């Protein structure tokens, strides 16, 4: 009987979702975005994530607001000293202030992730839109392209690419890492974009606009993109977090940021060997990293839920 029981709520949505009529109600006019905002306003996960994200962004823009210490001033004499009023999280192997280095490390992590995600977003939007809108052989070609890039193990490709892009040991590797990440991580966004463009372009309102004589540009920008963008934006938000983590991984593996650069990845990588002596220099940047990644992912999730009309 399970099959018969499994179809139940056929009419429940309509039963309660009697449309709001402007005549009978006195609701203020609200857009989809307005509704989503109403949803988000009451969502504590959204607020937690948003506060964390804002903190991290401010931290990377103005690290001096959070610490007066110089992350570059290190003294071996302070090696692995415990926390104190001057250095909240104590000192690392090199005798540098762990708190200061963690605060200053945010900038590289966040900037690299931002640049990488922007690159991934641009490629994703163009490829996804083209594949979804034009269909046919364009789609076949681009979809295979996406599959190929997806088929390559991300980390392996990143290692190889980052190596090739920054062969000069004196460079920090900042752009190399950002570019590498961008070029490798666009596929998820492109796929999401493609599928939401396909579903949006088959909507009746697109047909209605085509019938009025609207050209491809108008159809894409006015009708398809606004209705297809929400899931894509969510993926990008999540990607921001993921890219911060991947940057740290690359750096940890020695193919990311190098030399004097300060970043969470470097901090984790450098203090890992001494974890048996003192865990603090490893734990604090890791906590910051994990919280930041989590914040972006939670933010993305909350926004996705708010924009999904089916959940309303």
């Amino acid at each position, binding site marked *: 009987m399970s099959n018969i029981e499994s179809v139940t709520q056929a009419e429940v949505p309509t039963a309660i979702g009697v449309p709001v*009529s402007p005549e009978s109600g006195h609701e203020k*006019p609200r857009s989809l975005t307005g509704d989503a905002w109403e949803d988000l306003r009451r969502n504590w996960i959204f607020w937690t994530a948003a506060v964390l994200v804002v903190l991290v962004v401010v931290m990377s823009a103005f690290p001096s607001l959070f610490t007066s210490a110089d992350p570059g001033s290190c003294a071996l004499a302070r090696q692995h000293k415990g926390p104190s009023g001057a250095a909240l999280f104590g000192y690392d192997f090199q005798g540098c202030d762990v708190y200061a280095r963690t605060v200053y490390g945010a900038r590289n992590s966040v900037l690299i992730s931002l640049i990488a995600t922007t690159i991934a977003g641009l490629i994703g939007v163009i490829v996804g839109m083209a594949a979804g809108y034009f269909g046919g052989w364009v789609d076949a070609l681009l979809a295979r392209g996406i599959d190929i890039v997806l088929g390559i193990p991300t980390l392996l490709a990143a290692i190889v690419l980052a190596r090739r892009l920054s062969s000069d040991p004196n460079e920090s590797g900042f752009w190399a890492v950002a570019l590498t990440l961008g070029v490798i991580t666009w596929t998820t966004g492109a796929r999401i974009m493609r599928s939401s463009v396909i579903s949006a372009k088959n909507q*009746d309102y697109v*047909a209605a606009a085509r019938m*009025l004589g609207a050209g491809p540009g108008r159809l894409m920008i006015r009708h398809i993109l606004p209705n297809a963008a929400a899931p894509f934006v969510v993926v990008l938000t999540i990607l921001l977090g993921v890219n911060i983590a991947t940057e740290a991984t690359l750096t940890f593996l020695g193919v990311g940021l190098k030399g004097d650069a300060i970043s969470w990845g470097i901090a984790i990588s450098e203090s890992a060997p001494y974890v048996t002596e003192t865990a603090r220099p490893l734990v604090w940047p890791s906590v910051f990293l994990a919280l930041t990644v989590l914040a972006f992912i939670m933010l993305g999730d909350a926004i996705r839920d708010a924009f999904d009309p089916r959940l309303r």
Partner: protein
Amino acid sequence: MSQPVAKDVVLETSNLVKHFPITRGIVLQTQVGAVRAVDGVDLKLRRGETLGVVGESGCGKSTLAKLLVGLEKPTSGSIDVRGQDMTRLRGAELRRARRNIQMVLQDPYTSLNPRMTVGDIIGEPFDIHTEVVPRGERKQRVRELLDLVGLNPEHINRYPHQFSGGQRQRIGIARALALKPEIIVCDEPVSALDVSIQAQVINLLERLQDELGLSYIFIAHDLSVVRHIADRVAVMYLGKIVEIGVEDEIYERPTHPYTQALLSAVPVPDPTLRGQRDQIVLEGDVPSPANPPSGCRFRTRCWKAQDICAEQEPALTEREQSAHPSACHFAEERNVVHAVE
């Protein structure tokens, strides 16, 4: 007026055909067949007239609508609007010609862009056809259109989801009216609406026709609604028109077996007629339009079928037993709508 009848024809299709190719492969495509969605349709629509097109799912009526408004390109045949063949026009000429034939879609929930305000939706035709209304007057025109379809002009900045289904359908109608077309193709315009709302929209369409002198092509599966609104009716089966005539001829004196079966299956809201009407129950399903039967396409389900039906396709023409065009070798009147005896 003593104008010749031909002048009154606003739309005419001749031998209109749409085949959708069935292909294999993605990059190197080979055609393995074709779905004959519309297969040789001749129609005439006169000024101020409503032509109903009825038929069951898969009969090609929706494809026909798309062909008429230019959403699909015909495989062959012509669509003449006021003497101009739409299928031959290109560029600016085509855009101008298109203004004259607009469409109201079935689903009021999906046919309006949820991220645009009502003002933007109804005003979009003016953005695309910039020559119609000067920029400064567009908002005013949109308000007039809202008023015309019975909506509050103050609601110009609201979004579609703030309206009920019936009100959204009015928005769709206002959009179709924006460019002052002569012809409106209505594709199932009330079938997604609640029973108590349908009459509102039907009456609105009738009022607009009277006020603006519109011609409608009214496509629907609900034969009762079509009888109410249409002056003439075309019955389609597997991509072809099998019978066409004025409303009275089709409903009171149908001569094609398919029309008869279709009409007899429609329930009438009157329990005293139960068991009193002539009921024809068709066997089997509609054959695939990719591989239609030879000769008469209805013969596989027809109780009158003879050898000739498989060999020779019956033409849509007046016959000895049918005063109006009927595509059946054995056309004959039969009362299926009212109680018999």
